[in-house]
């Protein structure tokens, strides 16, 4: 049994230290080892890239195609970052260290401490603010587990506009509380596939019980935005999103400096790659030798079984294709417990770093993840999100294998799992 032998959680840095919030976001593209392949059109006669003008907020698009290494975070957005709980804590995981009898150190960056309980709010806020400034009245998006839809609903509410969320049907059925929260924040939620888009209706015709997928949800949300002249908020994969998420790694960099630490290992989980890229890219820039591990779900093994190629971002094939590790846009994963990892691809920048070997990858299976979540809740008191459980599983594994080395392992815990407790069924 595990017993905490000191109750002093040292090195928990106060969330009140707002100077830890960086002035600039960081874009990794100018520092990649190779040229990032640009997006390409899906058909000969039309430009999917040009179509983005009617899909994304203009400022998001400008950021996407300017590739500025450091981009100033506007003052109003920085202020909202403070309101939603930034900087998030970097915590020395004393309990976990003791439990694993580790000679080194484990830190975790806790994105679950934001108001919506995950890192997703970091990009939802700028995107919703940009859309509102452009005069857009309503934004549309998809959500898998519900974290992104929740973040979008809050961000839209802060920006004074409406939000419409297509929620992967299987999650919609299994997670009524998620839907409630999104509605509480002012969002409207539809199960996807839905009968509100051509794409959704076609899928339902073939299979009225279609469980949905993130790729399908994106396709419906984009089609809906185009048909109703709204703007689509993008939750991951796009470079601008990873840039907004860099706030995680930039804060961690300062917090590590205050703690007098240099990381030896960085670990995070990957759905589309936004929390992972946001956390690790600024630190990879600073610590050239740091070991970096990306954890994915064994049920969605994009790095180990996917192919590095140009592929569709959404199953409806509306958005331009990008070069990434992918299991194919028609991949419909098992009904897994970590909805946020059900995406078929991964951000192009991260895919390149995996391809070149800079970032190592691990597939974690359900049992392993559930065990890791249990250990983390008992030792640190935090019920992490199932997605983040993959990072924790990889971290625990790493520590067990390097038990006698005095390494400093830093894990990004992308969210809390208080609305995902149903995964702990049958006393698993």
């Amino acid at each position, binding site marked *: 049994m595990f017993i905490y032998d000191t109750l002093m959680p040292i090195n928990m840095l106060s969330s009140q230290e707002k100077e830890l919030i960086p002035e600039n976001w960081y874009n990794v593209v100018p520092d990649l080892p190779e040229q990032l392949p640009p997006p390409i059109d899906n058909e000969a006669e039309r430009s999917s890239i040009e179509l983005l003008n009617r899909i994304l907020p203009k400022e998001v698009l400008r950021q996407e*195609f300017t590739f500025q290494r450091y981009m100033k975070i506007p003052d109003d957005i920085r202020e909202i970052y403070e309101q939603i709980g930034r900087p998030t804590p970097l915590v020395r995981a004393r309990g976990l260290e003791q439990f694993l009898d580790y000679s080194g150190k484990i830190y975790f960056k806790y994105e679950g401490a934001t108001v919506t309980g995950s890192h997703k709010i970091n990009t939802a806020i700028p995107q919703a603010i940009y859309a509102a400034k452009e005069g857009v009245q309503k934004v549309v998006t998809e959500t898998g587990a519900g974290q992104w839809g929740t973040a979008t609903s809050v961000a839209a509410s802060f920006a004074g506009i409406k939000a419409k969320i297509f929620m992967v049907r299987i999650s919609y059925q299994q997670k009524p509380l998620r839907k409630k929260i999104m509605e509480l924040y002012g969002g409207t939620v539809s199960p996807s596939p839905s009968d509100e888009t051509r794409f959704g209706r076609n899928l339902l015709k073939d299979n009225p019980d279609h469980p949905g997928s993130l790729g399908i949800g994106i396709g419906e949300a984009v089609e809906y935005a185009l048909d109703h002249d709204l703007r689509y908020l993008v939750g991951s994969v796009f470079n601008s999103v990873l840039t907004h998420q860099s706030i995680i790694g930039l804060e961690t960099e300062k917090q590590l400096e205050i703690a007098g630490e240099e990381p030896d290992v960085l670990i995070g989980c990957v759905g589309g790659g936004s929390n992972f890229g946001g956390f690790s890219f600024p630190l990879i820039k600073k610590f050239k030798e740091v070991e970096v591990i990306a954890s994915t779900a064994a049920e969605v093994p994009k790095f180990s079984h996917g192919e590095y190629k140009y592929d569709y971002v959404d199953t409806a094939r509306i958005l331009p294709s990008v070069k990434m590790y992918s299991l194919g846009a028609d991949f419909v994963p098992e009904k897994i417990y970590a909805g946020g990892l059900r995406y078929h691809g991964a951000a192009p920048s991260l895919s390149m770093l995996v391809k070149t070997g800079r970032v190592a990858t691990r597939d974690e299976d359900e049992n392993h993840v559930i065990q890791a979540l249990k250990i983390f809740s008992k030792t640190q008191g935090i019920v992490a999100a199932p997605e983040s459980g993959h990072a924790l599983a990889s971290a625990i594994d790493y520590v067990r294998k390097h038990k006698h080395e005095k390494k400093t392992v830093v894990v990004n815990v992308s969210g809390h799992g208080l609305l995902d407790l149903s995964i702990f069924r049958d006393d698993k």
Partner: protein
Amino acid sequence: MNRKTIFYFTSSYPTHEQLLKFISSVDGEVVKYVELGLPSMNPLYDGPSIRKTHSDALRNFHFSHLAEYGSILTRKGVRPYLLAYYNDFAQRGERMLDDLADAGFAGLLIPDLLIDHADVAQSIIASVQKKLEFIPFFNPATPDAIVSRISGMTRSWVYYGLQPSTGIEIPYDLAEVSSRIRELLPSREVNFGFGIRNLDQVREIMSLGSDGVAIGTMIIPMLTGHDLEAFLKFQHELGEVAVA
């Protein structure tokens, strides 16, 4: 004399005879280089307008056309360059380099070399440079380290594509994108292209430190419509911008 313009034509589009007329009308006082696109089955980084010229030109294209364009241009003091996607270049092999040199071509530009064929870039650049200039093609997503490495391996001017694809309209910060390449390559000749839409934009780009502008998509309707007069007028207007 203030020659700042680079024209892009897809070889043999709309027909060899028509393109000959346009090329014969190129004004050596306004235009410094002409890029000729080798028609490709898969011009990945071109927008819909230029893609269409490729698929049409494939029907007409003959390699000997290039030699004809080359000799007309060199007589005017305008340097011709070939733009070829990597697979089309690789298929023809090194013999093409001799043929191009014989046809008076000054150099070669391979837009997808650093993006999709980075592993062979160094050896390709070396073999091209035995016969011709190799024109590095960079864009705002090219990492600093690659810009300096590839620039160090080459001596020619540099082509800087402002956006991901030709002939489309997408918002980006032109001043930011321009200053980045100027800081990285302060004393190199850098010509900007991709998606240049109008003369105001040409003016703005010139004011941001570009050594020249490459124009492609804007001329296509003139070519498609066999409208030589519109082309002459446009070329004249470009000349005025460049001198201003």
